């Protein structure tokens, strides 16, 4: 039977979908790109924005209409708020949490035989059986880049976010399994590996004394890299400034395989907005982390996440975020316009910054980022850097790649066999958000 899975949302969902696909393939189902051909269709939902939830409703109404003409089993998992879960019980044939993924084929084969209550599992905020999910060998979507989940859930309760209510409590995956997955991927030739978690650097805190801490986990992977003598870059996302210790930064500096790119969500440059967001870090703490990164790993690039127009954000508070951009000179900012997320605490508050003003603030920060990026990128012109080739560039005759610091570089080459390989590139020109270079050793086929 053919199946199709729709994945909405973040890298965590993308990573989860690799395991869902694996379980279905193992059970003998065959993937189809065409939804209409499928006998089993699933969706990995995202509750971050109402738009994503609206997509779920529009899809299931369409699929349920198809049931008039064909046999079709539908399932849903992913980030689902309790309120929506109640509604999905009536709309989908099967609902389950990721920790119950290994049971999915059984649920599908039981459909129509057993009662619906057996196929619709309630939301349990505790992820006690999540290891069964992690033990599923994923069907990686790339043969050189991979994501490895190292924890699930979140205990931070930021007021703009619903994850603690959709993914439940923070649970750390056993370190031996993480390290084994890294080793397997490296042995298979993977070049870029990203450890994933909602608060990746609070890894191990739920099993204090029984499990490695996050810097200890990084150190183990660094040692593994030394032993395996294979070139790869290991990243992690997203860390929380509250749990970002000097030790994490020191370990990154110590091991060549630990990518010198740090993604450190700031969310706002104003202490009062951070309090209202319930972020549990302030600018003093954030500044200390950035100063430590600059001192210990001066070559590291720094990425961040920012929300503009959060409830109650004044012009002065927004200006503090701009000042932080001036101070920290981020290489990249994933800046989002605030929109109330159903299920999050801030959804109960008046969304009082007008959309036009939010757009202006977004545009302003993008301009600020551009202003800081250009001189940084220009300073790299003439340097030879190591790159990982990722695919064809939009510009014909060029391939696209990124540096260890995840700066995008394109270079003239048409040899697609280079995709997924490391190479050296001399940077020839720079713009605000990308670089251009030429291969140091040009393959004959380029």
């Amino acid at each position, binding site marked *: 039977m053919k199946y199709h899975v729709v994945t909405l949302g973040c890298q965590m969902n993308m990573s989860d979908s690799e395991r869902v696909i694996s379980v279905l393939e193992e059970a003998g189902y065959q993937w189809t790109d065409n939804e209409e051909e499928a006998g089993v269709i699933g969706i990995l939902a995202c509750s971050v924005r109402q738009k994503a939830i609206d997509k779920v409703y529009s899809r299931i109404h369409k699929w349920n209409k198809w049931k008039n003409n064909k046999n079709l089993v539908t399932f849903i998992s992913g980030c689902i708020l309790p*309120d929506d879960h109640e509604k999905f019980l009536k709309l989908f044939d099967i609902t389950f949490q990721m920790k119950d993924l290994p049971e999915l084929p059984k649920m599908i084969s039981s459909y129509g035989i057993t009662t619906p209550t057996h196929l619709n599992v309630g939301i349990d905020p505790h992820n006690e059986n999540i290891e069964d999910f992690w033990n599923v060998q994923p069907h990686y979507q790339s043969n050189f880049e991979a994501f490895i989940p190292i924890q699930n859930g979140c205990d931070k309760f930021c007021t703009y976010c619903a994850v603690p209510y959709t993914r439940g409590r923070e649970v750390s995956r056993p370190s031996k399994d993480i390290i084994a997955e890294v080793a397997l991927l490296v042995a298979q030739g993977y070049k870029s590996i990203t450890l994933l978690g909602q608060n990746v650097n609070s890894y191990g805190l739920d099993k204090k004394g029984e499990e490695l801490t996050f810097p200890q986990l990084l150190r183990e992977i660094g040692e593994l890299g030394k032993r395996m003598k294979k070139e790869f870059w290991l990243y992690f996302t997203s860390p929380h400034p509250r749990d970002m210790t000097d030790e994490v930064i020191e370990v990154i500096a110590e091991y060549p395989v630990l990518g010198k790119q740090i993604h450190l969500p700031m969310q706002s440059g104003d*202490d009062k907005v951070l309090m209202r967001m319930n972020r549990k870090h*302030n600018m003093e703490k954030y500044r200390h982390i950035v100063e430590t990164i600059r001192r210990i790993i001066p070559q590291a690039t720094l990425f961040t996440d920012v929300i503009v127009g959060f409830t109650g954000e004044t012009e002065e508070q927004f200006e503090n975020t701009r000042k932080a951009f001036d101070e920290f000179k981020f290489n990249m900012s994933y800046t989002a316009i605030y929109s109330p997320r159903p299920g999050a605490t801030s959804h109960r508050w008046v969304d009082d910054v007008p959309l036009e003003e939010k757009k202006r603030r977004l545009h302003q920060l993008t301009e600020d980022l551009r202003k800081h990026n250009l001189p940084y990128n220009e300073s790299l012109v003439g340097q030879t850097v190591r790159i990982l080739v990722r695919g064809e560039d939009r510009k014909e005759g060029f391939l696209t790649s990124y540096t260890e610091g995840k700066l995008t570089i394109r270079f003239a080459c048409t040899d697609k066999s280079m995709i997924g390989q490391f190479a050296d590139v001399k940077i020839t020109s720079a713009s605000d958000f990308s670089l251009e270079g030429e291969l140091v050793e040009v393959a004959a086929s380029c």
Partner: protein
Amino acid sequence: MKKHKVTQVRHLTDSTFVIRFERNGMEFQTGQFVLLGTKGAVDRREYSIYSGENDDYLEVLVREVDGGKVSSKLKKLKAGDLVDVDGPFGFFKFDPQSFQVQQFLFIATGTGISPFHGFVKTHPQLNYKMIHGVRKVEEAYDHDDFNKERVTLCTSGEKGGDFDGRVTEFLKTETIDENTNCFLCGNSEMIYEVFDILSEKGIPTSNIYTEVYF
């Protein structure tokens, strides 16, 4: 998430009450909160733990919110009912031994007194002062559990407290040793203002700890 049996509901005012339920072995550090809802309900809310670390029960202080999905249901609870409890969570943990200078100022508005009630029940010998801002005198929740000499009740809606006016107005008149560790709990507006006042008085931000009630 576990089910805990309610053993007592104590109404302090028309809208505010303390729910006591079985502890069932839950370990926590004073200052943390739990997610609480009626049995099987979809919605739950965060409540600071009101009882002390050494009590053999758990308590939370709840104010009924107009149109609130959770608090109005909690208000109807009675002894013997079950509640869904998840936790503990949070980073407003309090251990006086971890401070070099064990001199504390607690500033609360309304039910923001809840974690401080837990602090004092857990550490009765504490060297503290507390400023509690409310609208009416009747909102001086369980002040008998505190040392009266150490507490200033600020009432903004009527006379009869120790100070007629808001916490922020009182605070401006006070001299505070810059080594004092200041803990703030309540609505965000109060916390913003108090944060600024304390900073102006020379208290380093590293000595200011906040728990915003939303």
